[in-house]
């Protein structure tokens, strides 16, 4: 009797939903970009920018609607992810608007980015609304595979932009970066596939020199993914996407099988692939050269002594110093073209917000990633765990590859900073990614439904009465 009472008591206590925490954080996440926006205006022409009110209201609306939907449809989800995504997206908009103030960088892009952000948040809400349970996605394992493959292969047939073929250009509509969406879809495929195959991959192995080596026939999938990554690298000349997909697969394989040997095997394969490709692919070689000599000058059409984008970015970071020049007062425009708003947006952060600001941004990404991994830990089903770690891992790899590339830690690749950088595909896809993580987190933290009144108990009562 007492045991039954205890269970009922625990079930009766409402688990904390943490939505109020989220609301408070969201207030900060909206206020900080609005202040930043004011800051740019004051620095640039000494007055508050005209669009500030609209921007503030717009961002508040997006955040507010998202928050209300969370209260309704994902009540128990992680309270930090939405505020962090909002803050990064809001700061990204301010940074792009700030760079729009430089006439040398071409047409304004902030209005478009605001529109894409709205679409992104709409997709975020759509996912929360439609996807009541993430396990539904498991049904689409093989469809996901096909879609992901198509998305990855398509850009091969379109002309490259700045040397990387990662775009699909639809005349009159615009261009799309399918790799951003493929990142999510392929994580769904891997999660579904590995959940089924994990036992075979984990258990059927031979022991060799203290490591469990997979059977020959189990090597198939990893070799296929490896080959695909190499093909992306060779034909689409995109180091970043290639690295992202292979890394993602290795992480998920490791989590699914708990076998370190897969990691060793994966690293060996990627090292072999990288060295092999670097030996004959000139675009990879030139990236590596830029990385080794970031400040070297280049020659174009016989005119020498020109400063490279890489060097300009390094100068931006260096000139920012500890506390930065202040928003609107830096010279990251020297990077030139569209790059400061997209690939090199971190250079503006580094120069105008300084080391302090840049570290804060990196820590925000780190926090978002670790919240994702926490979600994986908390998830109760293997598919949810795998999907959550896949999405978080992909996000982490992307952040590392982009930030590492821009700051000269690793060779530069053609990818963009999630949420921060200009680009519709990226912002939409990453809002969807966060939505799926929140759905998994909501499912994981949702308290078990209160047990239905036990018929036995009732009977007992009846008997008693």
């Amino acid at each position: 009797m007492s045991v039954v009472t205890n269970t009922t008591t625990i079930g009766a206590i409402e688990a904390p939903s943490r939505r109020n925490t989220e609301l408070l954080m969201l207030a900060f996440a909206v206020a900080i970009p609005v202040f930043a926006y004011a800051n740019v205006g004051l620095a640039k022409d000494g007055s508050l920018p005209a669009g500030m009110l609209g921007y503030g209201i717009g961002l508040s609306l997006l955040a507010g609607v998202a928050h209300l939907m969370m209260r309704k449809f994902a009540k128990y989800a992680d309270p930090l992810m939405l505020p962090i995504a909002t803050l990064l997206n809001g700061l990204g908009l301010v940074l792009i608007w700030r760079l729009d103030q430089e006439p040398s960088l071409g047409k304004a892009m902030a209005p478009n980015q605001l529109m894409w952000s709205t679409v992104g948040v709409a997709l975020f809400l759509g996912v929360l609304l439609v996807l009541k349970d993430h396990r539904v996605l498991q049904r689409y394992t093989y469809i996901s595979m096909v879609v992901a493959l198509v998305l990855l292969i398509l850009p091969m047939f379109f002309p490259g932009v700045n040397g990387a073929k990662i775009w699909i250009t639809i005349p009159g509509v615009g261009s799309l970066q399918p790799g951003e969406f493929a990142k999510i879809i392929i994580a769904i495929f891997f999660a579904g596939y590995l959940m089924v195959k994990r036992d075979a991959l984990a258990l059927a192995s031979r022991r060799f020199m203290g490591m469990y080596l997979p059977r020959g026939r189990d090597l198939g999938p990893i070799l296929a993914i490896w080959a695909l990554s190499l093909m992306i690298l060779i034909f689409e000349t995109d180091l970043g996407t290639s690295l992202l997909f292979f890394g993602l697969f290795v992480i998920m394989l490791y989590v699914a099988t708990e076998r370190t040997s897969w990691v060793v095997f994966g690293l060996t394969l990627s090292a072999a692939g990288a060295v092999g490709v670097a030996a004959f692919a000139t675009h990879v070689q030139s990236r590596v050269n830029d990385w080794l000599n970031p400040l070297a000058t280049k020659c174009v059409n016989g005119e020498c002594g020109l400063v490279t984008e890489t060097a300009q970015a390094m100068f931006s970071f260096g000139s920012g110093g500890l506390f930065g020049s202040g928003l609107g007062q830096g010279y990251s425009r020297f990077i030139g073209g569209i790059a400061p708003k997209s690939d090199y947006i971190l250079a503006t952060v580094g120069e105008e917000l300084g080391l302090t600001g840049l570290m804060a941004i990196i820590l925000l990404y780190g926090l978002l990633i670790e919240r994702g991994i926490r979600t994986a830990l908390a998830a109760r089903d293997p598919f949810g765990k795998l999907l959550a770690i896949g999405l978080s891992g992909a996000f982490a790899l992307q952040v590392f590859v982009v930030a590492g590339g821009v700051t000269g830690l690793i060779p530069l690749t053609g990818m963009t900073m999630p949420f921060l950088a200009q680009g519709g595909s990226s912002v939409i896809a990453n809002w969807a990614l966060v939505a799926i993580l929140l759905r998994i987190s909501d499912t994981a933290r949702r308290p078990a439904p209160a047990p239905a009144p036990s018929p036995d108990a009732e009977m007992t009562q009846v008997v008693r009465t």
Partner: protein
Amino acid sequence: MNKPLRRVAIFCGILILALLVRVNWVQYAQADKLKTHKDNRRVLVERYAHPRGDIVVDGKAITGSVEAKSGDLKYKRTYKDGAMWAPVTGFASQVYGATQLESIHDGILTGTDDRLFFDRTLSLFTGEQKKGGNVVTTLNGDAQRAAFDGLKGKKGAVAALDPRTGKILALASAPSYDPSKISGMGDAEEWKKLDKKVNPDDPSLNRALRQTYPPGSTFKVVTAAAALEHEKYPDIDAATDSPFPWKLPQSSTLLPNDGNHPCENASLRVALQWSCNTVFGKIGSDLGREKMQETAEKFGFNSEQFTPVRSNASVWPKEMNPPSTALSAIGQFETAATPLQMAMVTAAIANDGKLMQPYMVDKLTDPNLDVIKQTDPVEMSRPLSADNAQKVQQMMETVVKDGTGKNAQINGVTVGGKTGTAQHGINNDKNPYAWFISYAKTDKGSPVAVAVVVEDSEAARGDISGGGLAAPIAKSVMEAVLDRSK
């Protein structure tokens, strides 16, 4: 599955940590290197973000700053009478860097000098626009104009000093260039015109400091000073041991004199009056290379001068045979001097043997005109004793009174001078250089010593002589200085 998940979490943490370490390396450890890297355009932007301080002559700025119409560098340099002052200022160009005073005192002019730290910090709080400090020169605007006008249409240079202090009063070079025309962006055409390959006149060459010419007969005052100092001939009115005609030692070549003058055994005074090659050639030969070198180097030969703008070293050859020594003693062979050097020689004699270090920056001031650094006159050396200096003065005054330098006479003022006509080119086939060095003396000592060189003039070869071409320029410069000091 949680164990590998935790490991992946740690792995992701390491990735983030690696990024943090990297940005600290770039933005902290490497920051200064990147911030000041030569390719970092911010260095230029910052440099031209504020009006540059001015270079000042006679209390008035000869430079200015205006907002540039094109390019991302805000202020560009302007110059008043740029061509006239170019040998003093040099240029400060947004594209081609800076030279001379503009370069040497760049820190003061841009305001980045450590000595302006307090002003910078203050303007941070007061919100006043940052401005550089000023460079106040020793130059005399009237003398400079006299020199520059005198050289109009000619090729040559003038250097004038205040013998008592070493202050540079005039420093002109012709043909010149206007540094205003190359100070901004998009001035590549004008810049190309300054290239020696395109323009044989080489207008950007600062002839007063950077061109060495054979000094010709003007060098005879150095030889005369050496003869007195080394006690070869202590009395300037006593006959010297100078046969005529005279063969160069170890040679059968006769050393000619210019014109038919009483040079045989002439006294030093007469020999200088008529510029006797035989007398001074023999003195050089008799004293020998080393003794001549000792005196020449005391006058500043064989070393660069820093005024603070560097001047090329004038040359007394350190290795040569006796006939060459004789030729060098009359300012030929490899002897070469900048106009500044010859002005220094004149100044040392006019200042009773005391050579003052030549300088052109009187003081550096902060933007509020408070003095940061004042240059004090410094004695450089004593090439000859006061007695001997006065003897050379008497000789040079005779040259102007009764000899080759009559064109430099000024009413009511004692003037001493020496002409020179230096030959050059293979077999002397080019127009000679016309030299004139002189000083003026008042009851308060000598306020001005000047050296003028005119090269490659259009005038017919026979007309070229120091007295004809260069002396009038020297005279007008001296007059300009004298008028001011009245």
